[in-house]
């Protein structure tokens, strides 16, 4: 019963039958009432004519004996002796009530009409079921055409329903013919008004899915492309290690290079994972955090790098900076900004981080003394795998892409500007967390 077509057909037929039943019942009752009056009139006429006539003519006796109407005529003398009976009906009472009466004998009800003259009593009777049968037959005749066209109507209804549902069937075929690759919108032309919104909603969903799929494909393609360089380096470094043979100095240098190559590949993969988690669509778990504390921890991890470069890495926080967000993502954001600042600044330079709250809105600022980023380039550097001009730092090209992704997921903005230290100033501003007045 899940088919719309079957359901519609069943209901259509049920309504048709109900209509036939109501129609039949109405005509039955009206015909019954009419025949009652007619037969009563007939009974009365027959009795009165018998009274006036005195005798029963032979042709009349024939009519009286008509099986179809089942009339029974009885005549008694006034002392109660039966002098005539058209058919002997012992069930009928020997006494008659004058005028119309319903007489019940056994399980049969009789309609009787009796009239009295000076010398005798005349009673004409007829069984009720005869009347009902005639009424029912008439009613049936009036309903019969309706019942006869019912199958035809059902057939016609089925055809109409199938025709009306054709767009749905076509839509189903269209959807079924698809695979995971074909996310083109469904055809929306010539659709009934009831189905069009469904198709529009489906098309909107398909467009969303297509966008997400494209983004993921682009990400995977980019990632695969970017992994080629570290892998090429690794292969060459392995070759050098083999080439070094028993030359200890050459082996040591080759192992050192290979180690750097592996570190670089590992870092790229790690950054890719961080970015994949920060991409829109990934699950985000937020918790109340202190941005100042988070920044302190992120910087602690970078101290080895800072001291190796002789850089002066500092954090300025005037107190707790409450923020609701994703701990892993925000840590990656702070670490990537500080890491970039350290790597792109000349050795021994200052890198300053500041965190604070302004009217309930947390902010983070990173200043470095590196080459900065030209104003025209500032939009580009947030894209994946875009590195600045040639430099010796083997960056993954993902740092700022991660920063942007994490910031966007937190509703924060990232702005690039010139730093008073001579390099780049990155400012991240989160939306206000203060309760609205």
């Amino acid at each position, binding site marked *: 019963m899940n088919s719309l077509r079957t359901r519609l057909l069943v209901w259509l037929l049920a309504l048709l039958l109900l209509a036939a039943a109501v129609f039949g019942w109405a005509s039955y009752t009206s015909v019954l009432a009419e025949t009652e009056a007619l037969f009563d009139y007939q009974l009365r006429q027959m009795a009165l004519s018998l009274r006036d006539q005195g005798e029963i003519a032979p042709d009349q006796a024939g009519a009286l004996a008509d099986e179809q109407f089942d009339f029974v005529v009885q005549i008694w003398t006034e002392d109660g002796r039966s002098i005539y009976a058209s058919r002997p009906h012992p069930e009928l009472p020997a006494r008659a009530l004058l005028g119309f009466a319903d007489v019940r004998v056994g399980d049969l009800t009789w309609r009787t009409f009796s009239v009295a003259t000076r010398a005798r009593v005349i009673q004409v009777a007829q069984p009720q079921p005869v009347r009902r049968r005639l009424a029912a037959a008439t009613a049936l005749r009036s309903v019969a055409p309706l019942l006869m066209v019912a199958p035809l109507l059902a057939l016609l209804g089925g055809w109409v329903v199938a025709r009306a549902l054709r767009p749905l069937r076509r839509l189903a075929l269209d959807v079924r013919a698809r695979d995971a690759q074909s996310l083109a919108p469904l055809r929306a032309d010539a659709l009934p008004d009831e189905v069009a919104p469904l198709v529009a909603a489906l098309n909107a969903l398909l467009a969303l899915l297509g966008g997400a799929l494209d983004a993921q494909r682009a990400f995977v393609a980019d990632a695969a*492309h970017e992994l080629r360089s570290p892998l090429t*380096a690794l292969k*060459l470094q392995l*070759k050098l290690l083999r080439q070094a043979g028993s030359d200890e100095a050459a082996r040591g240098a080759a192992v050192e290079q290979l180690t750097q190559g592996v570190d670089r590949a590992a870092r790229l993969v790690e950054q890719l994972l961080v970015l994949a988690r920060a991409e829109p669509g990934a699950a985000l778990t937020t918790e109340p955090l202190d941005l100042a504390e988070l920044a302190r921890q992120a910087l602690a991890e970078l101290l080895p790098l800072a001291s190796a470069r002789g850089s002066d890495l500092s954090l300025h926080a005037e107190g707790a900076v409450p923020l609701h967000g994703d701990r892993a993502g925000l840590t990656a954001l702070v670490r990537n900004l500080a890491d970039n600042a350290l790597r792109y600044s000349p050795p021994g330079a200052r890198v300053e981080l500041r965190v604070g709250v302004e009217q309930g809105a947390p902010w983070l600022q990173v200043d470095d003394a590196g080459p900065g980023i030209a104003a025209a380039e500032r939009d580009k550097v947030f894209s994946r795998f875009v590195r600045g001009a*040639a430099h010796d730092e083997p960056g993954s090209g993902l740092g700022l892409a991660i920063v942007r992704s994490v910031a966007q997921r937190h509703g924060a903005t990232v702005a690039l500007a010139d730093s008073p230290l001579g390099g780049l100033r990155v400012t991240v501003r989160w939306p206000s967390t203060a309760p609205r007045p």
Partner: protein
Amino acid sequence: MRVLLVEDDRMIGDSLRSALRGEGHAVDWVRDAQAAHGSLATEHFDLVLLDLGLPDGDGLPVLRALRARRDATPVIVLTARDAKGDRVAGLDAGADDYLVKPFEYDELAARMRAVARRHGGRAETVMQCGAVTLDPATRQVTRDGQPVLLSAREFAVLEALMQRPGALLSRAQLEDKLYGWGDAVESNAVSVYVHQLRRKLGADFIGTVRGVGYYVGRPGGGTP
């Protein structure tokens, strides 16, 4: 061979240069398109290894400019771009070969030898001149069928001479094939290597035209 390496990735450039030097090639390494343009316009190289994704633009214009000057220096493109369209574009821009990263060094070396062979118009993989043979693939040199041990630089000098028997190569030209920029060129190093080769292959195997240069085989072409 003197090789120009155009590669912006520090690690790849570093390792590739070391590996190529290990085989006796002189390697000059530049890291952007502008430097590549400059080097190719002013100096002669036996082979160019060209990366396409450079920080200051694409590598293909460098190649096109080279071919536009009717410069036939062999060029092998080394790139991460593996799409068929990229490979076709690279070869059609004038590349002699196209190698997709990550590649095996051995394959690169083989392709470099193949490109050099084609460029020199040779069909045979083993060079022969008189009783001496040189196999660039196995880096083996024989004299009368007996293997001769050579240092990487001796091999490089011999290979340069045997590529075109009879052709004269000046001391400066030979030095070019041995030393990249920044390599300390020992004075009369070439004379020293030639001396060593004569000792190992026979005193009259390498001829000298005083003041002009060295040759193997008959001067002017052909083998003795």
